[in-house]
């Protein structure tokens, strides 16, 4: 029997992806990215002088990400302001992006990336990272490449690409394992997390599946950037 996903998607099929840059005119770079109903918006300010001054690093610039969910982005209202979860995702996002960023070009400066989740249907950190990578490129920050992020799910024993909320809450058999992964187009891992239960062999499969999937996201990101440039 083939596995049926609740919304009828194929195993490796992602929800409709949308990406657009230049959505916040005030920012130096900005982008909106969505996986179906999950929508993230990111804006870049900088490079600009780091304040407080004692946080300045004369060897390289600093990437400072801030992930935030709007209070009404989910069913049960989230209390506004930072939480332990959002603090962690902010840092994870910095780590996911920094490998491709030529941050050493900006000693003493800071690049701020503000990510807001407008609407959440799982995979919000992945949408946020994708939007942030686009916004940084849109801001003209020198980068070795983009990064693309996707969440691979293991529902009971079946691997699926781009987990939505209903799948995240899947409880049959071995339940749901969520593995958000961020990669460069070459397939180097800049971020990986996992929650659930999986064997080492299965995890290796997950990584290969992610490698295949991020390429598709990369194409959409690239297209969005190209469209923003008037020829």
């Amino acid at each position, binding site marked *: 029997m083939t596995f049926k996903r609740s919304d009828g998607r194929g195993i490796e099929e992602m929800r409709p992806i949308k990406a657009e840059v230049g959505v916040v005119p005030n920012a130096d770079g900005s982008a909106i990215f969505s996986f179906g109903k999950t929508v993230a918006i990111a804006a870049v300010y900088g490079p600009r002088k780091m304040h407080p001054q004692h946080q300045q690093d004369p060897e390289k610039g600093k990437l400072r990400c801030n992930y935030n969910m709007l209070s009404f982005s989910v069913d*049960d209202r989230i209390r506004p302001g930072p939480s*332990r*979860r959002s*603090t*962690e995702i902010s*840092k*994870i996002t*910095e*780590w996911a992006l*920094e*490998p*491709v960023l030529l941050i050493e070009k900006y000693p003493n400066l800071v690049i701020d990336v503000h990510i807001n989740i407008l609407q959440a249907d799982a995979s919000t950190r992945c949408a946020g990272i994708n939007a942030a990578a686009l916004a940084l490129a849109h801001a003209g920050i020198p980068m070795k490449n983009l990064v693309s992020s996707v969440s691979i799910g293991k529902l009971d024993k079946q691997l699926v690409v781009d987990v939505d909320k209903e799948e995240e809450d899947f409880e049959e058999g071995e339940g749901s394992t969520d*593995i958000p992964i961020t990669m*460069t187009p070459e*397939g*180097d*891992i*800049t*971020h*990986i*997390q*996992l*929650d*659930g*239960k*999986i*064997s*080492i062999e299965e*995890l*290796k499969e997950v*990584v*290969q599946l992610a*490698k295949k999937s991020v390429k598709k996201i990369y194409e959409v990101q690239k297209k969005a950037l190209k469209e923003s440039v008037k020829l």
Partner: protein
Amino acid sequence: METAKVTGERIKSYLSTGKRFDGRKQDEFRDITIETGISEKAEGSARVKIGNTEVIVGVKLSVSEPYPDSPNKGNLMVTSELLPLSSERFESGPPKFPAIELGRLIDRAIRESKFINLEKLCIKEGEKVWSVFIDIYSINYDGNLIDAAGIGAILSLKTAYLPKYDQENEKVLYGEHTDQKIPLSEELPIVITSHKIGGNIIVDPTIEEEDVSETRITIGGSVEGKLFSIQKGGIKEITVEEMDKLLEMNDNARKKVYSQIKKYL
């Protein structure tokens, strides 16, 4: 004091010939020393030393309301404090990112492995459940607090007893322990963190090694090879091949750590 650049370079060049400063192999832990029941007041507690790194972990239980989305389950809270007494690098004040992350890393390994049977900690559905608080404190910081905290957490859970609960007056009678233990499963989550330094992968870094680490991958898994939680940290990427190698090494290290700690379980 931050590790000097020249020390960092030396660590890297040593590692490229397969050597570490303290003569350990790349997948070798420092000596692990364990003491359980270190607190009279905590329901369960442990002191874990890995080399010069030391943490103490305590488990407290209280009765409270369940979360609305899990009315028939007990609550689990893991927090950590990086005490200023344990290193000149830690300052007092509200928790900063490393302390928040440490708590969450351990929380997720325990939660996702379903090590604690939270359903059995329900007293009255929707109204009263046991809350399990696991609190981690650093006593001396010389690298690898994460793995030490993970060991401390499972040991304190293993050694904890529920306090008496007075149903009538809805009061927990602390100090009057029952002989009932926290309901735990067989699947023990052991947290092992691997670091990538240069092109090399090691486990159980000292503080100097941790300072020059470029990438860190923390994995909560069982000795049987099931993985429950993963988190990558650090500012460098890792290739798929390196990741595969890391997974094998991480698994081997977990088996060795388990053989060292199992007599306390």
